[in-house]
């Protein structure tokens, strides 16, 4: 048996961390929230700005993916039209569990200023939403804060429990 020179027990720090499965899974999940690029209108510009170097989403482990299969969170950034509603639902269904949705900006929250025949009055009529960001458009700081809140939300969840059935899944 190899003789170690360091007495770990005495120098304070076994190379072992004790934790629960929940904690370690949620640690992994909350620090690698990959987002589906879902830019629909002007809010998308702010979403891109959050991803770019000044605000730098990579710090949070949030990397934009162009495929729903690789994404954990869908950031609905912009005006959802009725023609597009079908596709947002399809892409949401294609994301693998666990999945979350951030609704960014007034348009995605309530239809915003587009009180017309062609705009879905809030994307929560079609997909379940976890976080609503107010603003038209919300600044990148708001989106950053939303991602941090989402991290806190994920850490509170139990890891192995399947997600609560959301409305009309």
């Amino acid at each position: 048996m190899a003789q170690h020179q360091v007495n770990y027990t005495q120098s304070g720090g076994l190379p072992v961390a004790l934790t629960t499965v929940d904690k370690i899974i949620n640690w992994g999940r909350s620090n690698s929230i990959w987002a589906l690029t879902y830019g629909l209108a002007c809010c998308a510009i702010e979403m891109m700005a959050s991803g770019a170097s000044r605000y730098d989403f990579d710090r949070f482990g949030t990397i934009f993916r162009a495929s729903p299969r690789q994404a954990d969170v869908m950031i609905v950034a912009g005006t959802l039209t009725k023609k597009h509603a079908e596709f947002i639902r399809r892409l949401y269904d294609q994301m693998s569990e666990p999945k979350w949705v951030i609704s960014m900006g007034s348009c995605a929250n309530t239809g915003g200023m587009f009180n017309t025949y062609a705009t879905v009055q809030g994307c929560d009529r079609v997909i379940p939403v976890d976080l609503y960001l107010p603003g038209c458009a919300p600044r990148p700081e708001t989106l950053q804060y939303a991602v941090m809140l989402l991290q806190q939300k994920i850490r509170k969840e139990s890891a192995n429990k399947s997600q609560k059935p959301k409305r009309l899944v």
Partner: protein
Amino acid sequence: MMRPYTPKDNVQAKAYYTDRYWVAPRVPEEPVPEEGVYAEDLAAVKSAHEVLKAYIQRGQLVIHINPEDNFDVLKILKEERWYEMLSELSAVDFLAERGGFEIFYQILNLNTARRIRVKCFVEENRAIESVNPLYRSADWAEREMWDLMGVKVNNHPYLKRLIMPDDWEGHPLRKTYPLEGDEFAQWYEVDKIFGKDARDVIGPENRDPARIDRYDTERFARLGYEVPRGAPADMVDKTEETPIRYQEEEGVFLIKELSPDKSKVLDRRK
């Protein structure tokens, strides 16, 4: 000094009879000059087809023709008078006043930089001939006209909705179409994705921007002034700020705690 007297009797009645809305002034119509390029253009059209009305507006020739002649008139103007580009084509809704649509074709001669607007009036439910064989740009413009106005186009190679979804009902740019949509439009996404049964579960759209919901105070809170879930409304007005926390109080597993005293706040741009 006295103010000049203006008669004030019957003020209310006057306000009642004047226009409540601003009426846009009409662009003056001038006669077509006896000679010049436009006179020749007009003569070329007149020799073959009936011209209902022709005048110059803002330096451009406007010709009103019968709707049956639209293809032939544009053909003459294109092939004999070299108006080779169709810059715009659409319909204007006159359903309430005249029971139909005014269709206009804005064409451009690239050599002389002159423009002509050819107009014709079609009644509702009457179709118009496609000018797609003459001008390729008419393809989408005619599809849009069909989609949003409901003017049918004969002999169009692919008359399908351009902007609205294929299974849409109605033509939304008609003045009779409600801005907030008819019943079909309001339930469109629900019916399509979840089926008609889901209408009860999801409920109607909230289209009242001034609606106040008593429960909003429970569901939403001002950033930095958060209240516990379900807190009574009077808790919301408190002036004391709750600090915005970026991490849970007990810290995060494997992640260094963010300490506000150690972090640096940039108060101006570099």
